[in-house]
């Protein structure tokens, strides 16, 4: 099949059996690749009610048709699994070069099954695939493992590794690759750790066939030209995602002290130009990207290097925990990356603990003697280490995520555990921002921002407006943006540079030989979206409307300070947004997909009972 690696590699870690299967053409036709393959294999193969940390769960790693090709941003790899954090669907998108190497090794998906008795790593060198003993690597940082393996096998090898966090199955453990790119959210690292798989070392020397080489080169070059001609490429590349720190602060979207407010008085020293001047040394990019967003930094204060911090980490481990020194945020970032835990969820848990501590719901005994106060950088570092090692009362408590932690402690702390479906909300405060609110509420992995980023839209249309157009916009974004994950590509080239998305159509056709317009792809996107919804329904008893509710902070607690002081969405408007959403999605009022919608979307084969 043109544009594909051609093989699904199955690794049974229980038996040690490695199986290669040709990538099914029907799956490629209907699910295209990347995230599409992820949900297809998850729904088809992981038994209903499988224990996410048990041998029945699978970790599905997928590249896409644009991965490794002459395509701006062809560097995204999807990691899909049943989430140990939420009990539902998890899909983490990892940049770097791993996805390209998968294509060169002839692989569209790597499916990790079962559980190894002893710690192992997966070694892939073209068709040579082996499980090898990893005891020498256990306890080592994810970045250390990468350095070690590249030294041993060669610089051409691409490495993905878990840290101590994954080994300890912290429920939001991450997977590191390329010195700071992460498969971050939903606990994909915990699943890898539960299978006793420490790392994957990957090398491929093949090439990918395309349907029409001349058309492919022409279309690829046209996309690069469009990116290079974008009038804001220099500004975007200079700052990457950190460009929005100052703006979020200004519009009240910057999480401040566990989302108590959306503007941070100490925020100015976290702004992009300050960060660039103080620590950034290299604009580091993923495979094929003409506008590298990675800000690789040399942090003199701690004598360390780290990729980042990028916006989310600045929000969650900076303003969210009351830190004002960007070097402290960078150090927290490095600790999370090397220990292998998600910076967003870690930041949320730590800021929750700080609020609980300051309110007296957590005592020094609960926090192992650590002064969990906003602004205490040492407390942040100590907490990250304890979480990754599941050490002490604090580590054990916070390693479970903010929903379980607050349920355990009680005392009203649930009211400020900022999560949806058990996934900690990422770094956009949604006080009086109804489009972004419904986006978070309905995101298919829990409270994550990247499916439908709608903050500017809120400002353009009126942030408090509760109108069908906002919901329609969010739905369109949800059908469209994740399609880049399906193609194995980054979406920021379109998102940030504003290039014409129709430029991707001839590229995709020249590579795969299949014509797909964006209208076609949004239909596939809608189908995939509904399949992920179906997955939640079948896995979680009582799943539905109750699981789409936001944290009460966003409809009962107007901020006392900052741009959105005094502003909040009314509780009835939260439900009204949800009603409009279900209606426009073709779902019933309890948030379930009725048979006629399943029929229309050709999803009946995936529904249970």
């Amino acid at each position: 099949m043109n544009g594909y690696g051609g093989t699904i590699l199955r690794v049974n870690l229980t038996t040690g059996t490695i199986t290669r299967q040709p990538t099914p053409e029907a799956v490629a036709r209907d699910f295209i690749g990347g995230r599409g393959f992820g949900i297809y294999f998850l729904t088809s193969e992981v038994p209903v009610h499988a224990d996410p940390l048990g041998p029945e769960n699978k970790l599905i790693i997928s590249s896409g048709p644009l991965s490794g090709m002459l395509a701006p941003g062809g560097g995204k790899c999807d990691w899909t699994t049943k989430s140990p954090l939420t009990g539902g669907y998890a899909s983490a998108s990892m940049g770097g070069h791993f996805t390209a190497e998968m294509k060169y090794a002839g692989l569209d998906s790597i499916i990790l099954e079962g559980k190894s008795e002893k710690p192992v790593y997966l070694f892939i060198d073209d068709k040579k695939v082996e499980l090898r003993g990893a005891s020498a690597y256990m306890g080592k940082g994810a970045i250390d493992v990468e350095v070690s393996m590249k030294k041993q096998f060669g610089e051409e090898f691409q490495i993905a590794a878990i840290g101590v966090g994954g080994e300890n199955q912290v429920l939001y453990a991450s997977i590191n690759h390329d010195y700071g790119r992460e498969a971050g959210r939903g606990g994909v690292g915990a699943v890898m750790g539960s299978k006793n798989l420490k790392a994957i070392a990957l090398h491929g020397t093949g090439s990918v066939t395309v349907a029409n080489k001349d058309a492919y080169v022409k279309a690829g070059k046209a996309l690069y030209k469009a990116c290079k001609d974008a009038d804001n490429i220099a500004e975007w590349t200079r700052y990457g995602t950190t460009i929005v720190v100052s703006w979020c602060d200004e519009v009240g979207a910057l999480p401040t002290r566990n989302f108590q407010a959306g503007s941070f008085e100490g925020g100015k020293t976290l702004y992009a130009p300050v960060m660039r001047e103080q620590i950034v040394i290299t604009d580091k990019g993923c495979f094929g990207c003409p506008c590298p967003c990675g800000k690789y930094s040399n942090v003199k204060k701690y004598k360390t290097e780290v990729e980042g911090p990028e916006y989310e980490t600045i929000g969650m481990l900076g303003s969210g925990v009351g830190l004002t020194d960007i070097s402290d945020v960078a150090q927290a970032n490095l600790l999370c990356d090397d220990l292998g835990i998600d910076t967003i969820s870690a930041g949320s848990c730590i800021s929750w603990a700080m609020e609980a501590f300051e309110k007296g719901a957590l005592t020094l005994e609960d926090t192992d003697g650590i002064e969990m106060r906003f602004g205490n950088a040492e407390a942040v570092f100590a907490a990250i280490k304890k979480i990754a090692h599941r050490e002490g009362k604090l580590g054990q408590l916070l390693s479970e995520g903010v929903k379980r932690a607050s349920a355990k402690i009680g005392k009203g702390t649930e009211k400020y555990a900022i999560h949806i479906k058990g996934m900690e909300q990422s770094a956009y405060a949604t006080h009086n921002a109804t489009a972004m609110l419904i986006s978070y509420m309905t995101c298919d992995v829990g409270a994550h921002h990247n499916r439908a980023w709608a903050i500017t839209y809120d400002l353009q249309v009126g942030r408090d407006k509760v109108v069908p157009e906002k919901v329609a916009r969010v739905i369109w974004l949800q059908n469209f943006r994740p399609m880049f994950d399906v193609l194995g590509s980054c979406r920021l080239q379109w998102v940030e540079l504003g290039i014409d998305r129709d430029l991707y159509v001839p590229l995709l056709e020249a590579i795969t030989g299949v014509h797909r317009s964006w209208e076609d792809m949004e239909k596939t996107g809608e189908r995939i979206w509904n399949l992920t919804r179906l997955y939640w329904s079948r896995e979680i008893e009582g799943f539905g409307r109750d699981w789409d509710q936001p944290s009460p902070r966003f409809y009962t607690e107007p901020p006392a300070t900052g741009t959105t002081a005094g502003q909040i969405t009314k509780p009835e408007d939260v439900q009204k947004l949800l009603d409009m959403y279900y209606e426009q999605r073709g779902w019933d009022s309890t948030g379930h997909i009725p048979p006629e919608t399943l029929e229309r979307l050709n999803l009946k084969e995936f529904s249970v009972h």
Partner: protein
Amino acid sequence: MRLYADHSKCSGCNACRVACSLNLFGVSNPKMAALIIEPHFPAPGVYEVKVCTQCGDCAKVCPVDCIQQNDKGAYYVVQEDCIMCGACVPECPEGVMFMRAELVPNTAWECDLCGDCVEVCGTSALWIAEKA
């Protein structure tokens, strides 16, 4: 004329190497490109780029004279004439004279100054100019 690289602008994206392998061999395979991106991570955290300076040292030692110059004055390997003796590889001061039988069984290769790498480099880390 020759290719130049500014390391400080390189992001390690490898788009240049994809474009290069497409030009030389018609496939998307950075390992078959004629320039090198060497990452130095985690410290100091920079990329080093090695490009052909068109010095001609490779051509001087080729026993079958299969490294010729095109109308731009750039050296290139006449692929069908290469006997895979490997004499050229150690001569290259930049390490960008390539022979890897496991990737390309029938020829060595080096930069023919096609310019496609410059075209796709988003950070303007590459450019073509007169030899110094």
